[in-house]
């Protein structure tokens, strides 16, 4: 079973790195912003860190710092420009950002390896992933209980009401965007360390789609949902890949569809738990009651 163990470890590693990326996307969603930009932040972090690891012999921990910093800076700039766009326009803009990022990566051949990509010299190990994810979770758990957490939830529920309550909506969203950038950058470095080889397609639409699926299907109303979502949707496929060759994507798609239709709140859904607890014997609450909490335009 040695091979099975390797496989499981590998699946766990990808799940952990995926969880960090999913948390990055969760951060923006928390403040009511639907953003795909995590992948762009990850690309910035990964390529910056890899370049420094190769040229300056940076170790993993330093690389993570650099990657987080890089992601954060880009997020700050992108946030300045993009946050004022309304809901679905921001989604479009961040998709565009991913496309532009790829073009930049392709054309900065000297720094990124261009379309050829480059080998990542430093390997990431399971325990390092666990440490990083644990730190990220701690930070988010603290944030959830802080004033920021309350403000973010209020902003997500209804930005107009939040503003009248004196919450600085724009600043909350900008802060969420920057934290998302830092997490994205860190996640990108981890992902690069796992892949051992990155090219412009390593951080592209496919990854963006996977990450957003992790968040939504895991449960977009609690940070822990993103972690669970990542385990199910990035870890499991690595393991399942071995047994299903062609046609695997059809199964993936069916799974996405089924969960989205039958568990709209995701796997981790505090609202539904509360409802189950409160109203076990009473008439089920109308589904629409929760809808205002969804991202609005």
């Amino acid at each position, binding site marked *: 079973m040695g091979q099975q163990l390797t496989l499981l470890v590998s699946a766990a590693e990808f799940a952990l790195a995926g969880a960090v990326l999913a948390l990055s996307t969760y951060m923006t969603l928390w403040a009511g912003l*639907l953003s795909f930009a995590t992948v762009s932040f990850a690309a910035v972090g990964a390529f910056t860190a890899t370049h420094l690891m190769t040229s300056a012999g940076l170790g993993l921990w330093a690389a993570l710092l650099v990657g987080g910093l890089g992601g954060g800076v880009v997020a700050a700039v992108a946030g300045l*420009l*993009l946050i004022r*766009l*309304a*809901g*679905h*326009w921001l*989604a*479009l*803009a961040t*998709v*565009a*950002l991913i*496309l*532009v990022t*790829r*073009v*930049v990566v*392709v*054309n900065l051949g000297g720094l990124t390896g261009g379309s050829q990509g480059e080998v990542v010299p430093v390997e990431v190990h399971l325990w390092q992933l666990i440490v990083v994810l644990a730190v990220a979770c701690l930070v988010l758990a603290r944030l959830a209980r802080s004033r920021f957490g309350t403000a973010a939830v209020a902003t997500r529920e209804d930005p107009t009401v939040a503003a009248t309550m004196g919450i600085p909506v724009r600043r909350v969203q900008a802060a969420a965007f920057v934290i998302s950038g830092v997490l994205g950058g860190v996640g990108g470095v981890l992902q690069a360390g796992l892949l051992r080889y990155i090219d412009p397609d390593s951080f592209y*639409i496919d990854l963006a*789609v996977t990450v*957003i*699926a992790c968040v*939504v*299907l895991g449960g*977009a109303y609690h940070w822990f949902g993103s972690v669970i979502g990542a385990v199910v949707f990035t870890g499991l496929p690595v393991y399942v890949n071995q047994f299903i060759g*062609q*046609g*695997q*994507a*059809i199964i*993936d*798609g*069916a*799974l*996405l*569809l089924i969960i*989205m*239709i039958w568990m*709209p709140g995701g796997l981790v859904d505090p609202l539904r738990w509360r409802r189950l607890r409160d109203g076990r014997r009473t008439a089920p609450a109308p*589904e*629409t009651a*929760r*809808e*205002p909490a*969804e*991202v*609005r*335009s």
Partner: protein
Amino acid sequence: MLLVQQLINGLALGAVYALFAVGFGVVFSTMRILNLAQGMYATWGAIFAYWAVAHAGLPFPVACLVGTAIGAMAAVAVDQVAFQPLRSRGGEQLLGTIITSVALWISLREAASLATGAAPLGFPPGTVPGGLIRFAGLRVLATQVIAIVCAIVVTAAIHVILRHTRLGAAIRAVGHDRGAAMLGGVNPRVAILTAAALAGAATGLAGVFYADGQTFTFSLGDGLLLQGFAAVVIGGMGDVRGAAFGGFAIGVVQVLSAQYISNSFQDAITFGLLLVVLVVRPRGLLKTVELGRA
């Protein structure tokens, strides 16, 4: 002369993007769905059109109709499978529909890969109108002219349907406020299915025109999705004329930038333009009133 030649090539390429963008824009503005499965309508439209020509021996115009019909049917099916269950739950569905459209995107893509054996396909010689129009040193293919004409006609037709018919008014009303539309006597289901079918038809036709002069594979729709996406944002999606304009603009920009600047910056220019437009004029270059938004 080379400039004019490349301008025509750009317009012909842009015609395909325009058709795709029109479909994308109709769905986005009436249903507010960011439909990532849209490229698959084009892929399947092209595959069926190819089968119609290569295996069933049908003439090219019929194949175009087949591609269009398959696109429309795929769009209606996707809408019913992926979007209707969420819609019936009510509320804002942007996030959920992105996920379900992704689900359909990857499934339909894999199915297309299996159906074609991932092989490159090409319309057999002689099945596509092969005429070459030469004048004043220019060489224009008959298929290029057909694509441009069709893009203009289809855009105009969809524009007329949306703006000047009762059905179109119903579609716009549903996009604006479903509850109010129902109170006003509109059957939202009919309106939504019509909008989906129109979008799918335009996209299926885009797929056929994208495929007819070249070879293509199951991933045809992916490239089209990104370019069509750029076109629709640049042109503005409140009005199909804006989306079509965006499509033509992207086609011309791509071909001319490859000729006169550098091929490697072709995407940088397209998507950079896209980002600039989003930041500076989020409603698109053509100032239009967006459907369905107050």
